[in-house]
């Protein structure tokens, strides 16, 4: 099996900041808006280099989304930055009407998604945002897995015409995908070849899926591991091709099992190739305070949980 080297833990939000900084130099139409979380979103470099294209909107997310929609009129490519909770749930109607229905070229960039936000607790740990965003017609939904991929995705979405939700996180996690990779929206990344079970993962769970595959391999189970960085549009072809080979699937995400990647995969398989599926996701619950590792353990979102789900999926073939 392939080995992946962690080149050093880094946070995905810093990947966003680096991508935005790079875009600032290459695309003069890129503008950035932030709702009083410049440091948390790692937007400082863009702000310092391009103060005229950086808009501090204060703690006023609804206005931020409207401003961004308006800035597209005149050819700007706005990147909004705040926590995932305030990027989606708080401003759902603004995104729905002024961005999605209006077909505006706004990039909604959301940090601190999911449980790994940690000690701030459930008020800030949104586990519903993928569902909210993927239900909007025309919205592209991306959840990147590491620093390098987040940087590449940030750069790639500027070239995509249409609204995008880009989801990333707070903690430092393994950085293992190639530097300066060619990020293709909607194209799954095949990480491991295997025949016994398919594991599709998104965001922070991708590294956990690779760790799980190692454990399974040691026990004589070969896992086909796919990194689904784009939840919408979903690379259905890659998923169907894999389950035709393995006959069962585990989906893994830092999100509620309602509305997330798992449900998108289930819909695809139900209509094209019915397959036993296990969900590694939160079970319709809010989070709580704790360290990221404690929370991922308690809510069953780590390599051990993926191993367990894989074995269960195999018994259901």
């Amino acid at each position, binding site marked *: 099996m392939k080995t992946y080297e962690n080149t050093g833990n880094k946070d995905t939000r810093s990947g966003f900041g680096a991508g935005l900084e790079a875009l600032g130099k290459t695309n003069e139409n890129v503008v950035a808006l932030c709702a009083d979380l410049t440091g948390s979103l790692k937007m400082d470099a863009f702000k310092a280099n391009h103060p005229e294209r950086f808009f501090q909107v204060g703690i006023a997310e*609804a206005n931020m989304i409207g*401003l961004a*929609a308006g800035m597209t*009129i*005149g050819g700007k490519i706005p990147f909004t930055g705040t926590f995932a909770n305030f990027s989606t749930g708080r401003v759902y*109607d603004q995104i729905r009407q002024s961005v999605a*229905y209006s077909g505006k070229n706004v990039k909604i960039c959301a940090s601190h998604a999911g449980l790994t936000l940690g000690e701030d607790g459930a008020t800030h740990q949104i586990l519903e945002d993928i569902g909210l965003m993927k239900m909007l017609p025309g919205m592209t939904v991306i959840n990147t897995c590491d620093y390098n991929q987040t940087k590449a995705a940030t750069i790639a979405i500027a070239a995509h015409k249409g609204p995008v939700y880009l989801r990333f996180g707070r903690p430092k996690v393994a950085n293992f995908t190639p530097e300066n990779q060619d990020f293709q929206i909607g194209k799954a990344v095949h990480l491991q070849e295997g025949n016994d079970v398919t594991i599709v993962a998104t965001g922070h769970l991708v590294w956990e899926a690779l760790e799980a595959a190692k454990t399974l391999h040691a026990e004589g189970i070969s896992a086909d591991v796919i990194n689904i960085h784009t939840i919408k549009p979903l690379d259905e072809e890659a998923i169907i091709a894999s389950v035709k080979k393995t006959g069962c699937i585990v989906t893994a995400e830092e999100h509620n099992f309602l509305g997330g990647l798992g449900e998108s995969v289930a819909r695809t398989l139900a209509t094209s190739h019915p397959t036993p599926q296990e969900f590694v996701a939160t079970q319709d619950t809010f989070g709580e305070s704790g360290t990221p590792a404690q929370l991922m353990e308690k809510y069953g979102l780590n390599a051990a949980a993926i191993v367990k789900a894989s074995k269960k999926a195999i018994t259901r073939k």
Partner: protein
Amino acid sequence: MADIQKLEALVTQVRRDILRQVHKVNSGHPGGSLGCAEFFVALFQEIMDRKEGFDMDGLGEDIFFLSNGHISPVFYSVLARSGYFPVEELNTFRLLDSRLQGHPTTHEGLPGVRIASGSLGQGLSVALGAAEAKKLNGCGHKVYSLMGDGELQEGQNWEAIMYAAANHIDNVIATVDLNGQQIDGSTDDVLALGSMRAKFEAFGWIVLDIEKGNDMASVVQGLQEAKNLSGKGKPVCVLMHTIMGNGVDFMMHTHAWHGKAPNDEQLATGLAQNAETLGDY
């Protein structure tokens, strides 16, 4: 100099268009539409510097955003009568497969519309964003917007009002249709707005009243004054005092026709009070 008589002649035709649109489909919002007929005619025919044709970016011209999208009948009528799309298309208002949706949208590609509106309170933010883009693009033209007074009960407006002053967005002219009515009754009864002038001034805006918002000469003069007040480091707010249902006697001074269409007889009465000046569609 504005030809006030010519503009007034267009207003009665626009009122006919409004009544006929909502009557045909037995739905829509005539009250606020009628109250803003003078504003729309003045804006599109006299005040805004507009290019021929329509492109979404609107560079090199003044642009307009309607926040209270439910008054789409007046918006559609004036857009059509200003050459954005065929006047006959008003026949398709609120019908299946129409570009003239119940509330305005960009989704069906109707020329003249740059943002969807209907869910209230969002238009001013969008207008401010477009105004920021104009500044970045070095475009010296202005951004106009209209919102209802009841709509100011939505909190997002106050985020936008604060932002505009703090960031010296002086190329936007935001008009409030002060008709004092909303669906459930008068704004005083539903959720009293207090002094709009005091509120906008406290937020750092230049405020201008158009006391006679249904008098064409006053509207043209007021909007020209607003234009002259722009570009001075502060956003400009026009408080336009109008009568909901203006121009159709039984619809005036009440919220009853906010979202209700006239029947055949009522339509005939309303049309008889408004001269057909440019030809019905």
